[in-house]
């Protein structure tokens, strides 16, 4: 019986060592080499020194933070609002809402990017809308800050559905008696939401913030399709910068060193989140 269990787990363990484990080892190994496509030369920590002076990479890290700062409030506030709105409806309607808002999540980013590029085009929908109130046209995809904002909006619209579902699920998990008791004590619906529901679902929101930071650092499709990282790397994320370094310029070694730094940044975010979670309990 024991043998059966080990035998069943074996293929996945082999795969684990062949791919994820091997690639984590290899990323560290490669980061010590200078490479021009596939000619490697050992250079020690030189790649890391190069990165310190690589302004484009650090811009991309800052861009990642910008994306996070723009996307997180947008997603959390709208998701909370819709969840509060939806939680009073019967489950059937809730499911329909979840379903509708999950469709953009399932749709591949490269598909979504095509239509948002048109929305943010120089003579596109957004410029037409702001034109109605006498503003614009603004260069939504060709100016660094606006480009980041456009990509943030696009990204928000696609990840939004998952987080709505997470928030709604944690609201529905709150025992109904709690609301009853509060209502009897004379709390208004708004008070109940802000004073009772919000603190209870705070751990979920923290988790969402963590996911969003991680996702912001790794936006790729929208950057690739909408701005190609431009202008001058002004909308690139660390993920995009790594991809470009490796597969446009062939510097696998340098890109591996950047990968390791990205890995550490994300690990740090996870650890901080875990610490806050434990502390808030």
């Amino acid at each position: 019986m024991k043998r059966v269990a080990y035998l069943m787990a074996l293929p996945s363990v082999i795969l684990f060592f062949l791919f994820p484990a091997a690639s984590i080892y290899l990323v560290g190994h490669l980061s010590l080499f200078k490479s021009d496509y596939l000619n490697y030369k050992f250079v020690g920590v030189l790649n890391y020194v190069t990165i310190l002076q690589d302004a484009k990479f650090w811009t991309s890290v800052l861009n990642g933070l910008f994306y996070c700062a723009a996307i997180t409030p947008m997603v959390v506030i709208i998701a909370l609002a819709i969840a509060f709105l939806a939680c009073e409806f019967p489950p059937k309607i809730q499911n329909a809402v979840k379903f509708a808002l999950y469709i953009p999540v399932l749709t591949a980013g490269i598909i979504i990017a095509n239509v948002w590029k048109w929305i943010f085009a120089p003579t596109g929908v957004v410029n037409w809308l702001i034109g109605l109130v006498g503003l614009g046209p603004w260069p939504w995809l060709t100016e660094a800050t606006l480009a980041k904002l456009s990509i943030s909006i696009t990204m928000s619209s696609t990840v939004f559905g998952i987080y709505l579902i997470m928030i709604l699920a944690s609201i529905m998990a709150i025992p109904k008696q709690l609301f009853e008791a509060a209502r009897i004590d004379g709390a208004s619906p708004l008070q109940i939401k802000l004073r009772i529901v919000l603190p209870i679902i705070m751990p979920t929101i923290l988790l969402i913030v963590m996911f969003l930071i991680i996702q912001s650092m790794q936006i790729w499709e929208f950057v690739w399709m909408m701005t190609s990282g431009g202008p001058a790397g002004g909308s690139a994320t660390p993920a995009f910068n790594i991809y470009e370094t490796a597969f446009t310029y062939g510097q696998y070694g340098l890109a591996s060193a950047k990968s390791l730094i990205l890995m550490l940044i994300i690990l740090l975010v996870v650890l901080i989140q875990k610490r806050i979670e434990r502390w808030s309990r």
Partner: protein
Amino acid sequence: MRAIVLFALCILFLLPLYFLIVGSFTPMVGIMKMPPRFIPAKPTLENYDKFMQYGGLLLRWLANSAIATIISIGLNIIIMGAAAYALALYRLKPLKYIYFAFAATMMVSRYSTIIPLFVLARIYQLRGLVAVIATSIFIPGSFFLMHDFMKKIPRDFVDSARIDGAGEVRILLRIMLPLCKPVVGVVVAIFAGAIYSDFMWQRLLLQGEEQMTFVVGIMTRLYILSTQGGYIHNYGVEMASGVLILLPMVAIFLWSNRYFIGGLTLGGIKE
């Protein structure tokens, strides 16, 4: 009133997809006319013709995508499912390490491992579709979904079957597998679409036109079109490419739809 607001918000989020479809049928001259139209003024198929010229190759790409997606997700369910089963049913100490090891890989950013993974594919001499399949099987998320689900199946089912003298294989095939249908549906719903549409990774591995998957093929075609002479940024063609890529996803979605709503609470995360 609240119902109207809720409904309007849902519509708002679906509007881009609607405009994608409308735009794909709009001729080049009309697409930039504002306000945007909800029904194309002069519906046309000219945007799709740009891709349809490829005819046979298009079918080839579609077949490649089907092969890559079905084999990857199938092997994923068998291999990761077996591990999840072993962990959930036989609570053996050494198997615990698998749980932690797989959890650790989930914390590693995908973009941190594309370079070593690309180099590994060369070291292992994997090429084309085989490389796509081999690198798409290991999905820790699917392991955790299945493990969580199997853990909750009451052990009495298994114990009583054992007392009745059923072998381990019989227990797996006759009892556990039918019970696990819903979670398998969810895994397919969440990850099949992700494998199918993984343009970022597949474009690195698939070079020859014959080998390309649907998404890589369409995107490459789009790139060629955009660099051809006299071709100015044509949003209609881009949106048509989006709709074409979307169609197989709709098929996956419709198939797994029945498992889906239950699964939404089971696994909130796509990646």
